[in-house]
Each structure stands twice: as structure tokens, then as C-alpha cells.
């Protein structure tokens, strides 16, 4: 059997940057390297000494596709230091804000990055020629996610609405009503997307890698909860670092997790 060497310098199916090096000798994998890279930007250092109020604007820049994730982590971290108890309305609005990001980001990932591979197209623009309804549905749902972020954060990329203890300004009742009605109208599209995704032919794959997740009683956890792992590990957020150290999982030299 001949040797196979595949080098993909830019993986177009990941958000951010990625590359793949694969070498097969005598029918088995000799080496396989998946590289997900971003040059160091040193947030860990330049955040030190900044005013807490600056954090939502600064940390958003970690990622333009998921800035809300970092804004939420930053405000919740600082608020917990101040023993601030989030009132129910704030919990709900921040959850809505974060869901907006999930809807936007997942719609983008499914339609622009993943679906062309499942359906055998090189990219979404080619896919749109044969599956215009699927692509348009994806773009419509992505727009709904962006609308939610914009309603609470003034713009969808690096939104500017979040501050410690709340929002700089709450949306008007009228803008929330408009948002609600467009969300309600898009529910059939979301259900159709789900049916469509389930119908795609997926390879069977079970991972043995240690995966961790948040877990929260009563709601799908995105803004709060404990850290759990399938092998029974549970950790509160505050003790995360020491819990992970105890696992003795291998940490790569280029990781900053130490």
C-alpha cells in the first residue's frame, strides 16, 4: 500500500485558523497533527491593572464571533467578587443576550462551515446554487441571533451594552416587542433546521477524550453552573483550576492552562 501525505495549510471548516498534517504509512496513521492556532495576543497580561469597568470592552476582542461569551464571563467574575446577586430580570436578559450569540454563531457554523462538506460542495456560495432554501434559512436565523445581540448591545460584533451590574441602557418595550415577534416568526425555520440537520448523513463516532461541560439545574447551562465531566468529576467554578490540576491530564507546552 502506498504512503499518503496530506498537508492542509488552511482548514476552512474551523472558526479562526486551523491546519492539518496527516501521514499514512503501510495503511496506518504514522502522524496526525490538527493545529488550531492564533498568535498569542496576551490578554492575560494587558488586562492586569485595568479598571474593572473596562473589562467588557477589552475581553470582547478575544473573539469577534463569540464576544458575548467573554463579556459574560468577565462581568460575572467581577460581580461574584463583589458578592453581587443578579436579580431575575438581569439573569433573563443576559441569558437572552447570550442565546442571541449562540443562534448567530451556530447558524454561521452549520451553514457556512459544516453543511457544504456534508452535501459535497466546496463552499456555501456553491451550495446556495442547489440548496438556496437551506442557505437562506441559515442566514435568516443568523440574522435573528444578531438582532437579539443588537437589541441589548447596540451592535452584533463587539456589542457595547454590557456593564458591571447590568446594562448601560435597557431596550425599550417597543424594540423588545418587535424582537419578540420576529423570533416567534422564525420558530418554524428553527424547527425545519433541526429536522434538516438530523437528516444529514453523519459518520458514527464515539470519543474517549475527556470532555467537560457546565451543568445547571433547571436550565440549559450557558451563564452559570458547575463544571462536570463524564467520569464523575464535578467542580465549582471557583475551584476549577485546582480540580483540573488534580486530574493530571496532559497539558501541552504551548498551553497557558498551567
Amino acid at each position: 500500500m502506498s504512503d499518503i501525505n496530506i498537508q492542509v495549510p488552511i482548514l476552512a471548516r474551523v472558526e479562526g485558523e486551523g491546519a492539518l498534517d496527516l501521514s499514512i504509512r503501510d495503511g496506518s496513521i504514522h502522524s496526525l497533527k490538527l493545529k488550531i492556532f492564533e498568535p498569542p495576543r496576551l490578554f492575560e497580561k494587558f488586562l492586569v491593572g485595568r479598571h474593572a469597568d473596562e473589562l467588557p470592552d477589552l475581553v470582547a476582542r478575544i473573539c469577534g464571533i463569540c464576544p458575548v461569551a467573554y463579556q459574560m464571563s468577565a462581568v460575572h467574575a467581577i460581580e461574584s467578587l463583589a458578592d453581587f446577586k443578579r436579580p431575575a430580570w438581569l439573569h433573563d436578559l443576559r441569558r437572552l443576550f447570550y442565546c442571541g450569540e449562540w443562534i448567530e454563531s451556530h447558524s454561521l457554523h452549520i451553514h457556512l462551515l459544516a453543511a457544504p462538506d456534508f452535501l459535497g460542495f466546496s463552499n456555501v456560495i456553491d451550495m446556495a446554487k442547489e440548496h438556496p432554501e437551506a442557505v437562506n434559512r441559515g442566514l435568516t436565523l443568523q440574522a435573528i441571533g444578531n438582532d437579539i445581540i443588537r437589541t441589548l448591545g447596540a451592535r452584533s460584533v463587539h456589542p457595547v451594552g454590557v456593564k458591571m451590574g447590568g446594562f448601560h441602557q435597557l431596550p425599550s418595550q417597543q424594540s423588545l416587542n418587535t424582537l419578540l415577534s420576529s423570533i416567534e416568526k422564525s420558530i418554524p425555520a428553527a424547527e425545519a433546521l433541526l429536522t434538516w440537520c438530523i437528516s444529514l448523513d453523519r459518520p458514527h463516532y464515539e470519543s474517549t477524550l475527556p470532555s467537560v461541560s457546565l451543568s445547571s439545574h433547571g436550565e440549559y447551562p450557558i451563564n452559570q453552573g458547575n463544571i462536570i465531566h463524564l467520569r464523575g468529576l464535578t467542580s465549582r467554578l471557583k475551584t476549577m483550576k485546582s480540580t483540573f490540576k488534580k486530574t493530571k491530564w496532559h497539558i501541552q507546552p504551548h498551553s497557558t492552562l498551567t
Partner: protein
Amino acid sequence: MIIFKQEKPTLAIHKFTSCDGCQLALLNLGPDLLELAKLVDIKHFAEAGIVASEESVDIALIEGSISTRSEQQRIQRIRQTSKYVIALGACATSGGIQALRNISNAEAWLASLYPDTSVLDSLTTSTPIEESVRVDFTLRGCPVSCQQLIDFLLQLTQKIKPKPIDHSVCQDCKRNQTSCVMVTKQIPCMGPVTQAGCNALCPRINRGCFGCYGPTKQANTVALAKQFKNLGMSDKDIKNSFLHINSHSSAFSTAANSINEDDSSHE
């Protein structure tokens, strides 16, 4: 005069050190993205799944700053194969937020974060594209907005020299009839010294501008620093307002350098 090699101009979007946010100005266009594909022939746009990074193009949009040795080489290759090079967003036009390392001990920062810095390709500086290659047009912002990018591409593809934005955020507040947050609410605002392009978002939601579009022409940073001081800000916080997303821009770095944290005698 704008001249393209192809009748339907070809376009590439290249990412350097950045957050990916400026590329979203295209990806967030929704159905208009498919319209844009009729106007330009998109050759390389990895974030949208289209890859041909070495192809020669008419328009190369560059997102991100130069912060690694391989990026220094890659931007040279792109300059050679692209008719028009456009710096897109704060990272490409000013080095971005990661340029805060330029005024610190970046080597020590890297060594304190990574167990083995020899595996890294990282420079001790983050610099705008124009410090490495000639840039034909710049679009500021963190991030650039959809409208801003589409206005630009529509002008360029019609072979009209794109009109630069050179007024301040302050002027957009007046147009939007937004009351001045600094005058009416004593909220520190970078609007007077910041270039427009965002449609003055922050003052509209009751907060001050934090300068994400970088310095405007003839920015009077001295007067603004004095006003911040009058509003009760500490020297350190005033300095940090200039050392933010566009800290490497000369108007802002000069403003920060002129503030002596220990000296309050010239009040």
C-alpha cells in the same frame, strides 16, 4: 484611477493576528452576501469556507496585525499578488488591542505565560499592515461595520476612489440628535477625538465612546485629557483611555505619553 485585472474584480480576505470580527462585516450581510458574490469574484475567504490563499487578486482585504515572523513573510507575498491592499479594522490599521505589548516588556509577558516559548512564533510587537507593506486604502473600526465595508466595496467596484471617513464621533451625535453624554451627564467620552464610522453607538446607549475607530484628524487630545481630569478621572485612567484598542496610533500614544501619572501640578 481604479483599474482591475478582471472585469469582475476578484477579492481575497486574509486573516492575520485578530479576533475574526471584521470578517463578520461580510458574513453578517445575510442574503446580501450572495448579492456581493455577484459583484465580486470571491477567491479566498477561509472563514466562509473558500480557500485559495496564494491566488493573485484585484482586492485584498487584510484583517489583523503583524505579530509573528510568518505573518511578516505572508503579508509580503500578498502585496505582490494583490492590486489593491486594504487594511480592514483596528488591528490592520493600528496594531489593535494586542499592540499594548509594544509599550510593555512583551518578552517577559510571553515567558510568564507559556511554559516553553521556543514553540511559539511571536514577535514582541504587534504592528499595522502599513508598517510592513504599502497599503492602498484603510477602513478603521473595531469592528468595521457592514455598512462601512459595503459602501467601500460598492465605490471601489464602480471604479470610484472610495471617500475616506474623516469626521469625529461628536459630529455623528449631533446628526443623530443624541445629547452629549459628557456635557449633560458628565460621562467621560472619547467622541471628540475619535473617528466616526460606528454611527456614534455608545453615546446613544448612555455611555461614553471608548475610541474603537482610532484618532480622528486634528484630534485635540490635550483638551480632552484636561476635560477628563475635570470630570474627576485619575491620571492612570486618563492614560488608559488612550492606551486602549488603538494604543499604537500616534495621536493616542502621544496623548498617553504626555500624561505624567505622578504629576498633577499643571492642573
